[in-house]
């Protein structure tokens, strides 16, 4: 017996809804995983295809947001693993915390430069800490981050604390 006749349209509808809600976040996620523009486009397309295919079996066992972020991060991590031989060494949040950096306050006044700097920081992170930082920057709470990544709430809290500390170290603003 084949799938019900409306499966395709349901799948298309779920995909369209997900992209309407999370399209910009997926775009930011692809940027955070892949600095190279061509490879970033490939990754973004791969994420969209995986998402569309996954909705054929969406059963509501988790929220749409959790579903979308899990698919996107898992596809992106696959790319990191595939390319790890060519990539530079990645570090964890604890190592970033220990690194001393000079903060250019003039530079921080410019949003574009601040974003570039933030992206460069994210590109240094190992996949797990990168996922925590991205989900935090997307405004997700600790429980949602834990559900998507699969780590305990306590662990999320520790990592989010580190994320905030690292960001505070590097993005201090000069007051006028």
């Amino acid at each position, binding site marked *: 017996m084949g799938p019900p006749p409306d499966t395709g349209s349901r799948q298309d509808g779920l995909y369209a809804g997900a*992209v309407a809600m999370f399209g910009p976040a997926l775009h*930011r996620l692809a940027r955070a995983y892949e600095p190279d523009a061509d490879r*970033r486009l490939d990754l973004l397309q791969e994420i*969209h295809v995986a998402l569309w295919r996954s909705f054929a079996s969406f059963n509501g066992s988790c929220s749409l947001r959790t579903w979308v972020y899990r698919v996107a991060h898992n596809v992106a991590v696959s790319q990191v693993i595939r390319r790890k031989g060519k990539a530079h060494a990645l570090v964890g949040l604890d190592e970033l915390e220990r690194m001393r950096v000079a903060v250019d306050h003039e530079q921080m006044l410019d949003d574009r430069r601040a*974003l570039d700097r933030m992206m460069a920081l994210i590109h240094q992170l190992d996949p797990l800490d990168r996922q925590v930082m991205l989900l935090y920057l997307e405004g997700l709470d600790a429980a949602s981050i834990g559900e*998507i990544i699969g780590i305990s709430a306590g662990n999320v809290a520790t990592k989010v604390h580190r994320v905030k500390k690292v960001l505070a170290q590097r993005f*201090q603003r000069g*007051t006028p």
Partner: protein
Amino acid sequence: MTGPPDDCDLQALWQSQPPGNDGGTVIALNLIRQLAEELEHRVARRNRREYIAAAIAVAVFGWQMFALPSLLLRIGAGLCIVGAIAIVYMLHRLGTAPMLPSELALTSALEFHRVQLERQRDLHRNALSWYLLPAVPGVLVLAVGHFLAQPERRSQLIVLSVVMFLFMVGIYVLNRRKAARIQRQIDRLKENL
């Protein structure tokens, strides 16, 4: 005087990024279907390449089975065919990810990462059994066959055999090192559970 940024400032800054020139945020459904088909074709092409490599190995050693002068050399060529088929089969079996589209969503990011790393670790850790050992009988019998058939070239054959042995040991050691490195990554991931 300086102060740390407000959490919301950085989150707002992050979320305010424009889509830029690399594709926008929406991909049309017909393009998605097309890309999904291309993905399947890509997998099919990769499988075809593996089968062609196996076919070339079978053709070369198959021809040698008839062309080589001694029975021992012919047996060696036959064993090389078996070895090549075994390696391609194992490469195909171990290298193909059996992940279903829905599993990408039902598996947490940490678990997914761990499973992917474990697959890679096993591929490297077991390189001796699936990559090196299937090739050994054929290579060994061919070496002995040439050794007996060409006594005047024994010294060259000994050097060649030693080089091949060292090459295989090198592949084994490199794979074990890679497996150990991946295991350390897995251990770090497990610390977060």
